[in-house]
């Protein structure tokens, strides 16, 4: 099944589900009008997983990764503003099409959870600044999770800005 929106697209392997969403605008802080934070910008976020994704999730998967088990995989593709494109952090020109066990680290996580491992990559693809974040449910069985994750990455498409 093809999942596509906001210029992001991917073919979902069997057993995988996903969503592409944009964040709502923030509420104004105390003493400020809504105009004071009107500068805040929404950007699309893609979440893909081979386990049920909860309705409430953080952009980097909090709320979801806590439910992962061995063999599970989670992928987030997150877009940033055009001002980030081609900066040093986003200097790479492509996202990986394949991840290896050696790419994953138990410390490469937004939130360290027992047994899990993750990896993060930033790049400017087709003029768009994006970040790939992948998590496996069990580092010791990462190979099983990477089969699905790499199938996702091979079909991941970022349309030009």
């Amino acid at each position: 099944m093809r999942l596509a929106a906001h210029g992001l697209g991917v073919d979902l392997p069997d057993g995988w589900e996903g969503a592409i969403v944009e964040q709502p605008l923030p509420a104004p802080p105390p003493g400020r009008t809504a105009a004071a934070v009107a500068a805040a910008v929404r950007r699309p976020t893609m979440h893909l997983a081979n386990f049920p994704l909860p309705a409430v999730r953080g952009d980097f998967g909090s709320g979801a990764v806590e439910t992962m088990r061995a063999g599970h995989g989670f992928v987030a593709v997150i877009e940033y503003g055009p001002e980030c494109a081609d900066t040093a952090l986003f200097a790479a020109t492509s996202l990986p099409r394949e991840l290896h066990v050696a790419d994953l680290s138990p410390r490469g996580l937004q939130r360290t959870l027992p047994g899990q491992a993750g990896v993060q990559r930033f790049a400017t693809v087709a003029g768009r600044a994006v970040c790939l974040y992948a998590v496996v449910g069990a580092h010791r069985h990462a190979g099983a999770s990477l089969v699905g994750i790499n199938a996702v990455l091979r079909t991941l498409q970022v349309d030009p800005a």
Partner: protein
Amino acid sequence: MTATTFSERVVARASRLLAGHGLSRRRFLARTAVVGSALTVDAWGFVLKPQTAYATVCGNDADCNNGWTAFCCTINDGANTCPPGSYAAGWWKVDDSAFCRGAARYYIDCNRHPGATCDCHCGDGECDRRRVCCNVFRYGQCNTQVPGVTEVVCRVILCTPPWEWDPSCTTTVRTDPATRTHSATCLPREFPSHIEIAYQDLGLSGSVLGRQIVGEADAPGGGRIAQYERGAILWTQALGAHHVAGAVDGRYRELGRSSGILGYPTHGQADVGDDRGERVLFEQGGIWWAPETGAWETWGPIHGAYRADGGPTGRLGYPTTGVYVTAEDEQRTDFETGWSIVHDPVTETTRVVRTAVEDGGTEDRATVQRWSGRDRIDTAAEVSRRTHAEGCDIVYVARADAFADALAGGVAAALAGAPVLLTWPTRVPPATVAELQRLDPSRIYLLGGELAADSGVEATLNGYARRGVERVFGQTRYDTAARISQVTFPRPGVPVAFIASGEGFADALAGIPAAAVAGGPILLTRRDQVPAATARELDRLRPDRCFVLGGTAVVSKAVVERLESFTSKPVTRLAGSDRYATAAAIVAATVEAAETAVIATGRDFPDGLAAGPAAVALGGAVLLVPGETIPEGTDRELRRLAPDRIVIVGGTGAVSGPVEGRLATYRATPPA
């Protein structure tokens, strides 16, 4: 026997259990305190539910094994700022946060700087034993010029949008509702006061205010105030919470803070924007601080007049007094530039006057004028209008964006009594066209070859010169200077020749009027070698004397020795420690007295180029300033010459308003 409560018995037993696990005294005391707190917070929950005392008090996500990163105030001595060796690397938010009184709460990750080191460990703060420098992760919206992903050292908390807190952060929103309840004892509790939020967003103990010394309390008029080591935060419902710090707060205290004449702050303390001072605006006025002047207030009509005049970046500069009452019962504030604002409460008039005159001094101050236009081209045209009101027969035109061909032409223009106007290489600007129409010259000298001004420019200029355009140029800048010299001084035996670097413009600028008055050319040289064209021209001219402009950094000793072969007298070097001191040295050596001093920026050449011929026409000298200050050498020459008039050539971007004000304080006649 003393009766004990159930809670006390539980604490005692828990303490015995904990003490039996080999804990240090410090850890033991800390843990028994937490157990005590747990019983206070939720005694039955603590006893009956399968969770630790720590979780009962601090929440489920505050311990190290929960995997989250600690707050910066926990590990950074209470400072809600990125610790040394880390930088803001990204942010997320949680909407509708009780910690921000219902608004969004922002979390900024401080990541290890790639050049720094740190070890992964658990924090030991009260209600924050989270991980420090462990998770290799980056949100990615801040400082994207820093490559790579490093460990998150700690997290800063704000209720202010991150892009306002750190301009390197972008506005792309990221969220993480799982962090909604995360907090630490060093952070404000839920539903904090406006003052607590303001203090948090300034950085808590790491802020300009330092640590809190007096708790939040009521203030006059329904406001609130909290006091810190180095200032205060004041709040009212209408104005919000704003901080006042350091010397500004010292003055505010002397004036009675919110009970005094100024009332409550309407804006927090902020830079003025001149890389020098700070200011706080209040309901009824402001306090202005600079290192040299201290902190002084303006209020009422004087405050209005001061702000209308541009405040500290206008011609008045910073105040050197508060508002005081004179012997004539007028209100007055004095400023660093020698001006005062005076308000007469009877006539309700406000005026700007020279401080010395108001003090009974004499009127022997120099008159300051500014000749400027919208840009360098317009400024050159304005100088021409001021010095050639009746028109003129000859006009020199030079390229506006490169000095190489123009410098030597300044002397020629000055000797011919002609102005210098500017052009772009491929088109003649409208301001120059308009001035040429007004001047109606018979001849235009165009300085430079086709690269400096193309044939289209020459054709356009031809339409405004009755006897046509004559190009003066050579193959190089040195050739061009020599060619201009040949045209201007066709006969050999000139009294003097000035030699300046062809690789910079500054030294030649001040030399233009000196050379013109002395009746000799400016020729150009390389640092270590006299160019062939310059040598040929000197050999032809055989000047009686030679002056080298600038130090050995721009004209070497070897060049000076070579120049001595072209003149019978020793070559004299006129130089200072920088371009401003060199300009002053040229004036000191060549100008005995001057009715007018012409001031131009030393940072670029066009204004000074136009100023040179103007200075000759006005019987004056050219001195240079960097824009924001008056250098020592320039100051010394202005005091020595004591000119009646000082003409600034260029806008406030070139020579600032405060410098203009200070120039007005120079005496017009030498002191007795």
